[in-house]
């Protein structure tokens, strides 16, 4: 570690720029400690070194150098002296621009909000229509169930069963009420073939008359089958039997397959 006197020996060379990096770093670190004597010595040494400039032979630069310099300096002075171009003040006051901007933002928000409300109303209407459809469907289902129950419980209803053993294994039976209609129902009824449906036929007594097509339906997933005919023939007297065939989807005007269930009426 050098002391102050040792550093003082470096100061002239430091001012001259001749110190090697290590010594220069050491001296600068010492100067950063704030040593007043060394700081003053450095200042004096710098003045001393400055005097060496006079040992260079004085020489005159060319007139062209002065010409170039003065040309540059005059051009820069003129450009800085030019008044700044202040943009013309707008005839529209700033508060009005702020107002217009606020109005524009409000309009955009209003349009967006109106669109959002419109979409919400449409969605609500769709939900209401769906619920109304479901309500009507339930009411119709309820009315049918009510009518079916009335047919089944009404003492005037006539039970119609197959005359003998059903070879197809369809366990169906029907009840006919001349006022309320006909109910055909059964359990464990197998599904018809793909794209086919079970269709009910009223077989007239008149051999020349053709079978009268009626309702079409499928058993549910559990094999339960219920069919309600609200508008059967007015009198059972002209009907010989009820029959169910398997027909293509949409039904047929004439039976196209062997009846899977037949029950005599009268």
């Amino acid at each position, binding site marked *: 570690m050098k002391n102050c006197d040792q550093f003082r020996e470096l100061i002239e060379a430091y001012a001259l720029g001749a110190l090697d990096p290590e010594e220069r770093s050491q001296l600068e670190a010492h100067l950063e400690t704030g040593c007043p004597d060394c700081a003053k010595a450095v200042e004096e040494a710098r003045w001393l070194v*400055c005097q060496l*400039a006079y040992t*260079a032979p004085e020489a005159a630069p060319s007139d062209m150098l002065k010409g170039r310099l003065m040309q540059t300096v005059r051009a820069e002075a003129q450009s800085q002296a030019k008044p700044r171009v202040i943009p013309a003040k707008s005839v529209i006051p700033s508060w009005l621009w702020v107002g217009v901007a606020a109005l524009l933002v409000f309009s955009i928000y209003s349009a967006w909000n109106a669109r959002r409300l419109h979409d919400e109303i449409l969605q609500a209407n769709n939900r209401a229509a769906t619920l109304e459809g479901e309500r009507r469907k339930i009411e119709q289902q309820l009315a049918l169930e009510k009518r079916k129950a009335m047919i089944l419980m009404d003492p005037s209803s006539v039970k119609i069963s197959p005359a003998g053993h059903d070879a197809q294994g369809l366990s169906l039976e029907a009840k006919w009420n001349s006022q309320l209609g006909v109910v055909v129902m059964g359990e464990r009824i197998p599904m018809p073939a793909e794209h086919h449906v079970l269709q009910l036929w009223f077989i007239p007594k008149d051999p020349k008359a053709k079978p009268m097509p009626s309702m079409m339906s499928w058993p549910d997933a559990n094999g339960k089958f219920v069919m309600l005919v609200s508008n059967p023939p007015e009198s059972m007297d002209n009907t010989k039997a009820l029959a169910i065939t398997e027909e293509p989807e949409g039904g047929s005007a004439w039976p196209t397959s062997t009846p899977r269930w037949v029950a005599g009426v009268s």
Partner: protein
Amino acid sequence: MFLAAFTSSSPREVSLDATLLSRLLQKDVSAFEQLYDRHSRLVYGLVLRILQQASTSEEVVQDVFLQLWRNADQYDSSRGPFVPWLCTMARNRALDHLRLKSERQRRREDQPDELPSVVVAPDYEKALDEKRRAERVRALMASLTPQQKKAIELAYFEGLSHSEIAATLKKPLGTVKSWIRNGLLRLKEGLQATT
């Protein structure tokens, strides 16, 4: 005091420089021109001594004076006279240029007829003052030993360090350090004695 002895200009000249610099801060072109006329010979001579090439030296001098024009506020008059500051800036720029030139190994020999001639300053009194100062410093430098003078010149005009000077002169490092320190101290004593 010692520092007062080293102010490179007479009080009248210092005052004139200060006035011109205050006008320069206001972007007074005339003030800039006067400062250039007063000090360009000293600055150019110094740069030319370092770079040894007229055209490159003029480029450096142009940079120095444009720096002065554009950043005159960087000069703090309370820290000392203007001329040493200007010379320090010129020397630093010239040495930077010299090192860059050396790194690129593209230093060229200058043509003898490109060397500028010594000029006579238009301001006789001022020129006389500067001339006297230059003569005093040169006389003191001439009184040093050739080794001291050479070592100091290598450091000041070529920007070499102690180690580089020792290698250049093929002398021990400690010897070079002594030459430089003793030479500068002798110069300092001589300046103190003649003021």
